[in-house]
């Protein structure tokens, strides 16, 4: 559990800042510097706002800007943003949201093109990892967002269990192969089954609650070679690959704690951090928590690796400038500053904020430090962690980001959850889901979506990714 998450300068959401600014403004005379311009940043409430607060003084010193954070709840962020932006509200200058909203938002005209602003402050995009450089932040060749947080699903496992000679011998005897970090899903199931010894030790755990359970399905689906759609926008999920992937996920429940169907992000962290689970697939900020003695009972006993075959990249966060903002240049400067190589590096490995790396220059073991410069892991663990991220992103499977993506994804989540709950068989669930997807495609306009999807897929090929 995060005990101390409020380090650094603190701003209450509007009051103190507003009063302070007001006083500053009143007290200015011609000779002094003008008061800092507030830039309104929409972000989901809590720890993801911290990097902005940490950078507040730098922002003020360099550009005369100050972050004014408007927090939206994590659950319901999409609804709120849509209702605000469809009414052309100028309440936000900078928008922070997951890229799977990007296709929608760009198509609906909520976002400004950022390329014209590059001359104000060079965002140094050359350093971005390929998977983020074009596919995530660009549409039709134009840039609409900048990276803030690069999420990735990763394997975390108990090194003490995997390296234990007795365990290795027993595994070899049972399965005829060596006990190692699984590189295929079939092996993953074997490992999970092997270590499943309730109630003291569970084989594995995953996010099975409604909300993100789809991501764990897509992770396996991608690993088995699945694709979201084909060129004609026929869904790829209701195929043998899809059925197999979902069946595997449903089977995984057998090796998980009994309350698996309510396991969400914090609970998933907790079942690994308290040492009760042998191997999990989780977002890649879990390692930072694993090595934090305040939160973890498995310090020094955890190892990290990419997911078998491919690693899904669910969620993440990007920063964009609202099309209705009244001061887009300031908004851009703030966003661009936050993701500069020497700025981002201060927060992408900080356990308090949960942001993850997106630049090549970040993927160094020596960079694994918090925003105050202190190393957050042992050297060995940091090297392992960085390698795992690099390996994962090389075979990263991107989250769908075309117009309508939130709907496709939400419906997939519902059907995956129904399969997990046992009310539908995997085949029935995926067939029904594909049917719903076809409805969405038809409603959105088959040609429009097909073109958007083709453009999106093309951007992966352009940067040399396998898709």
């Amino acid at each position: 559990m995060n005990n101390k998450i409020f380090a650094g300068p603190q701003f209450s959401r509007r009051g103190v800042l507003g009063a302070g600014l007001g006083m500053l403004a009143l007290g200015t005379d011609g000779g002094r510097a003008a008061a800092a311009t507030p830039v309104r940043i929409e972000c989901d409430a809590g720890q993801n706002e911290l990097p902005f607060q940490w950078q507040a003084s730098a922002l003020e010193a360099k550009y005369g800007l100050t972050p004014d954070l408007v927090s939206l709840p994590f659950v319901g962020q999409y609804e709120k943003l849509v209702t605000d932006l469809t009414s052309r509200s100028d309440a936000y200058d900078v928008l922070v949201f997951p890229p799977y909203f990007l296709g929608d938002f760009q198509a609906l005209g909520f976002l400004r093109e950022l390329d014209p602003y590059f001359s104000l402050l060079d965002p140094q995009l050359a350093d971005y990892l390929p998977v983020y450089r074009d596919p995530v932040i660009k549409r039709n060749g134009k840039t609409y967002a900048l990276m803030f947080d690069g999420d990735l699903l990763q394997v975390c496992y108990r090194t003490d269990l995997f390296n234990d000679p007795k365990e290795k011998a027993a595994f070899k005897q049972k399965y005829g192969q060596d006990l190692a970090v699984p590189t295929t899903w079939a092996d993953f199931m074997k490992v999970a089954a092997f270590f499943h010894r309730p109630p003291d030790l569970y084989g594995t755990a995953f996010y099975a609650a409604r909300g993100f359970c789809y991501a764990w399905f897509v992770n396996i689906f991608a690993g088995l070679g699945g694709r979201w759609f084909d060129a004609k926008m026929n869904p790829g999920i209701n195929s043998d690959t899809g059925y197999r992937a979902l069946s595997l996920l449903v089977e995984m429940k057998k090796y998980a704690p009994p309350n698996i169907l309510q396991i969400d992000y914090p609970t998933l962290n907790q079942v690994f951090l308290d040492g009760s689970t042998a191997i999990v697939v989780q977002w890649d900020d879990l390692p930072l928590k694993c090595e934090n003695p305040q939160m973890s009972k498995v310090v020094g006993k955890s190892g990290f690796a990419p997911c078998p075959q491919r690693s899904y990249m669910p969620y993440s966060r990007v920063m964009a400038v609202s099309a209705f903002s009244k001061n887009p240049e300031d908004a851009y400067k703030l966003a661009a500053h936050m993701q500069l190589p020497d700025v981002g590096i201060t927060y992408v490995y900080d356990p308090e904020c949960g942001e993850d790396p997106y630049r090549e220059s970040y993927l160094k073991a020596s960079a694994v430090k918090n925003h105050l410069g202190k190393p957050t892991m042992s050297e060995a663990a940091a090297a392992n962690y960085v390698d795992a991220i690099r390996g994962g992103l090389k075979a990263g499977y991107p989250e769908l980001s075309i117009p309508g993506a939130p709907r496709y994804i939400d419906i997939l989540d519902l059907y995956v959850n129904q399969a997990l709950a046992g009310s539908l068989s995997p085949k029935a669930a995926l067939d029904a889901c594909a049917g719903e997807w076809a409805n969405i495609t038809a409603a959105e306009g088959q040609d429009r979506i097909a073109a958007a999807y083709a453009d999106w897929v093309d951007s992966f090929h352009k940067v040399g990714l396998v898709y």
Partner: protein
Amino acid sequence: MIPTFGAALRRAIRSGFALFILLLFLSPVFWMLITAIKPPGEWLNSPPIFWPSHIDLGNFAEALVHWGGFKGLVDSLAVASGATALSLVVGIFAAYSLGRFRTGGENLSFTILSVLFMPPVAVAVPMYLFWRAFGLLDSFSALILQYTVFNVPFICWVLKSFFEDIDPAMEESALVNGATRWQAFLHIALPQARPAIVAVALLSFIFSWNEFFFAVILTRARVTTLPVILPTLMEGHDIRWGSIAAIASIAALPVICLAFALQRYLVRGLSFGALR
């Protein structure tokens, strides 16, 4: 009638059982209050910690300052008071008119009551567009007016049958003696309805204070009532149970105190109201 020993014993048993029921129902509330004063490490433990190692008011500080709990209190108070006041004004007059003079008959009453039937979800979209058209999104007026629309049918319904049952003779005699209809209403009908009015006022206040759905839809940053703050504490990464409990306690206590203060009106008000 001297109570026999048997009767006294039976009464003691009934009292004991009633006490047991009260404790049972209140135990989750106890848990909430305890969580609010527990320091951060003790929120989720196995076995659960039923008594904090020390009282940590940090949760309240965090809730009030960092999560905007103070502003939430102020905003909730403003909205709930405004809505209750406005609802009472409209509701009392409407109920009087419906009950005393049978304006519109049964059909009008049923129509007014049927507003309660409409699921909030359905009304949400048109009302969102409606308030947006008037530029009233994220304003106190929008919430107050919206809650008034919800409260008035209930107030009408309870008070209507109340006014129906008032003996018109007193008012008639006052009129004969030169009072205006308005004075008759104010000085004769209204005072008799006092318990009922207090009861519905309290219930309307509670409803407006607790309302979640429309508060979430119609407000952003200028107006933040207490229930709206709660989901923001469900961060994607970490759930601040202590602060949630603190805000919950802050949200619940004023209303509970109000209910206790007005306790004797509650039962009396309702029993003379719609329940005849």
